[in-house]
């Protein structure tokens, strides 16, 4: 799935206009004895059909990546590996789905899934939905959903991964994704450039109990940084700009759970998709598509549009392109996020487009405003203003990411007698 998915990214990223770069990756080892392990990984990779794999000695490695630690002994090089912006990819897919008629219901909790004669009845916090088929892509909650309808219970463990993000001035320190030798907890802490030119270190891997706990911890961040320091010759700690955590959906049986539930025909799982789930995603989708098409035998839609155009990226344009953009819409001449060079035009577009942003983090993930070295210090108040204006809501209703995550609580002097 990983190898297959990887090959689909060039076309997908072009059609949906999200950033993808084939940068290559290196699995480094720190002693000659470990080269044996690299050879095993090489063999395994070749069996999976991955092209261009080879073992690289220290001299060549240091030429390819001069900023690696002097302790590296050798590496396994995979030239086909690539990096994407995971949230831009997800948003691109969702926007394209809307374009093609998919309806999204947010803030809707699935409470029960029942098999009925002609399909399923889904009981949600917002009412009942009747459907012929269900695709379970509920991430770390996919076990709860599956277990509502199938007796073949599955169990998903939230596995926390913590990351540290570094300033763009360090983006050029390495040009490939650097792994260390994988452990039984997964591929380990990697050091990688991001598609936007930052340096990213992580993730850690720790099984936890709470499926909603995305807090970072002192121990986690310290571990990630220490592993990063092992890979790199130098890691300036004063260049960290942010840290964050996420949860992988780790299945107890250690493998992706993809396919129709045996005792609930029409209920299809895409569950336990932990790393390398992102690379495998397009291939998993194809597998599921085949099951659905086989079952429902739908007509091919003539008006299906595979193309989605992203928000114009002022920061990546030539001055001539910028000039034209501003002529057509002066809002693109007003830079609101100075660190990432994001214009008001981009922010407005992110709010107005299909499935547009309605929160500060929504705008951030669509435009990068607030993702730079000042971390929203200067642009937050501006984005809050634009959100209130474009959504026509009071400024105190603007949230960071929905719910009770309000950014401002009240007017000055409220509550003073």
């Amino acid at each position, binding site marked *: 799935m990983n190898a297959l998915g990887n090959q689909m990214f060039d076309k997908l990223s072009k059609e949906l206009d999200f950033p993808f770069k084939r940068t290559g990756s290196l699995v480094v080892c720190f002693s000659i004895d470990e080269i044996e392990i690299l050879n095993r990984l090489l063999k395994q990779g070749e069996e999976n059909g991955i092209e261009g794999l080879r073992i690289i000695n220290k001299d060549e490695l240091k030429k390819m990546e001069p900023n690696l630690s002097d302790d590296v002994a050798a590496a396994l090089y995979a030239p086909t590996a690539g990096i994407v912006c995971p949230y831009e990819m997800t948003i691109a897919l969702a926007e394209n789905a809307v374009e093609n008629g998919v309806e999204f219901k947010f803030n809707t909790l699935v409470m029960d899934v029942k098999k009925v004669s002609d399909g399923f009845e889904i009981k949600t916090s917002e009412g009942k939905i009747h459907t012929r088929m269900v695709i379970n892509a509920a991430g770390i909650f996919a076990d709860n959903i599956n277990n509502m309808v199938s007796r073949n219970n599955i169990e998903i463990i939230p596995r926390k991964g913590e990351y540290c993000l570094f300033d763009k001035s360090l983006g050029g320190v390495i040009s490939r994704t650097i792994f260390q030798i994988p452990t039984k907890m997964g591929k380990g802490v990697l050091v990688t450039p991001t598609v936007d030119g930052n340096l990213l270190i992580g993730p850690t891997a720790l099984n936890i109990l709470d499926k909603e706990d995305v807090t970072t911890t002192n121990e986690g961040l310290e571990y990630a940084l220490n592993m990063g320091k092992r890979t790199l010759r130098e890691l300036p700690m004063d260049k960290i700009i942010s840290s964050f955590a996420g949860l992988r959906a780790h299945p107890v049986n250690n493998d992706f759970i993809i396919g129709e539930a045996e005792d609930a025909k029409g209920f299809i799982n895409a569950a336990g998709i932990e790393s390398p789930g992102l690379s495998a995603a397009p291939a998993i989708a194809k597998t599921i598509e085949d099951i659905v098409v086989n079952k429902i035998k739908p007509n091919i839609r003539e008006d299906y549009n595979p193309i989605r155009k992203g928000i114009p990226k002022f920061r990546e344009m030539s001055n001539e392109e910028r000039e034209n953009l*501003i002529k057509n819409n002066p809002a693109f001449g007003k830079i609101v996020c100075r660190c990432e060079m994001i214009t008001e035009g981009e922010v407005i577009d992110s709010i107005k487009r299909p499935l547009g942003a309605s929160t500060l983090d929504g705008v951030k993930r669509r435009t990068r405003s607030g993702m730079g070295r000042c971390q929203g210090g200067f642009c937050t108040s501006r984005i809050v203003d634009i959100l209130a204006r474009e959504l026509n809501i009071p400024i105190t209703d603007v949230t960071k990411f929905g719910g009770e995550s309000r950014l401002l609580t009240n007017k000055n002097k409220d509550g*003073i007698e």
Partner: protein
Amino acid sequence: MMEVDVLVIGGGPAGLAAALSVKEEGINNILIIEREDKLGGILNQCIHNGFGLHIFKEELTGPEYAQRFIDRIEENKIPYKLNTMVININKEKIVTAVNSVDGVLEIKAKSIILAMGCRERPRGAINIPGSRCAGIYSAGTAQKFVNIKGYMPGKEVVILGSGDIGLIMARRMTLEGAKVKCVIELMPYSTGLKRNIVQCLDDFNIPLKFSHTVVNIKGKERLQGVTIAKVDENRKPIIGTEEFIPCDTLLLSVGLIPENELTKCAGIKLSKVTSGPEVNESMETEADGIFACGNVLHVHDLVDYVTMESIKAGKSAAEYIKGSRIKNKKAIVVNAQCGVRYTVPQYINPENVKDNIDIRFRVSNLYRDSYICVYFDERLEIKIKKRILTPGEMETVTIRKDVFSKYPQCKNITIKVEGDLNG
């Protein structure tokens, strides 16, 4: 392509004073570029008083202080562009800027004055673990919400860091109806001005906890509280000293960083200590004809000193245009040693010193009853007794021009803190 004699990047206190000083020297082809929608820079949100005691001998608010310069800019008809952001400077001193009206502007400048100011250190930079919920702001961001927009970021506040903006915001939030529970400082001393601790914390009974830090942040959507802990002498949290403080807002006042991304575009190296460019007695950077002043150079506590420094930068830029300035020859290197973190300027050409020169610096620790010593090569020339020296307050030593003539061969001036009298 537009051509100007002097381009000033930034319309805050530094840029305004520099531009006026250029104009006073008889240079007319000046342009100020400002990214905000009005001149004045960060002073516009500093509505408290205490500005101008040195320059105007009276106490002004931030906007009042700024207005005095804005009025003179208008009187002198010095051109400026608002809502305009510089996105590049190249080595030929061609500046690229963007706004909604002109689109992409290219401006060829004979001389450039860098006056972009600084930014606040964000949460990420100090890596506080925990939730990434709403309610965590840098103090300056909160100040903008309260003082410019009229909205409060929260009701129950903990402030991390005793920098001046944090102290000022402790008082502001209190006056606007919030409860400020405490100010937490990692170091055993404050990084803010003494007068701000008295007027902003003591007068409002707000506790200041030294040698403490925030070790965890709790809250799913909106902040619910922070865990603080005492730290040891290596600034590591001491296990067992944790204390949970319920609050809906955490303000960070944990340092300012000169904003020099454009300076780097021009190929100018930055000092590892100040994060700003190094300059000589004329506020000139290593790049010929590019000057710097204000917080882009090093972080100041008092705007009055920014103004003084900027007047000098403006004057030097004008002299550069007129060709009357003595070019860099063999400059004396100014060294910071023994408790002195850095100096500005870092180089001095004595020929360009008019009557005297102020060397500004910060110390790296708290010193009582000690001396600031200035050495010309090996010879001790100036020794000033100081009852107290603290990292939070910028120090100045003034060297008269005639002292330089005593040491025509001098290569190094060294500034040290010496003789802690109490041992």
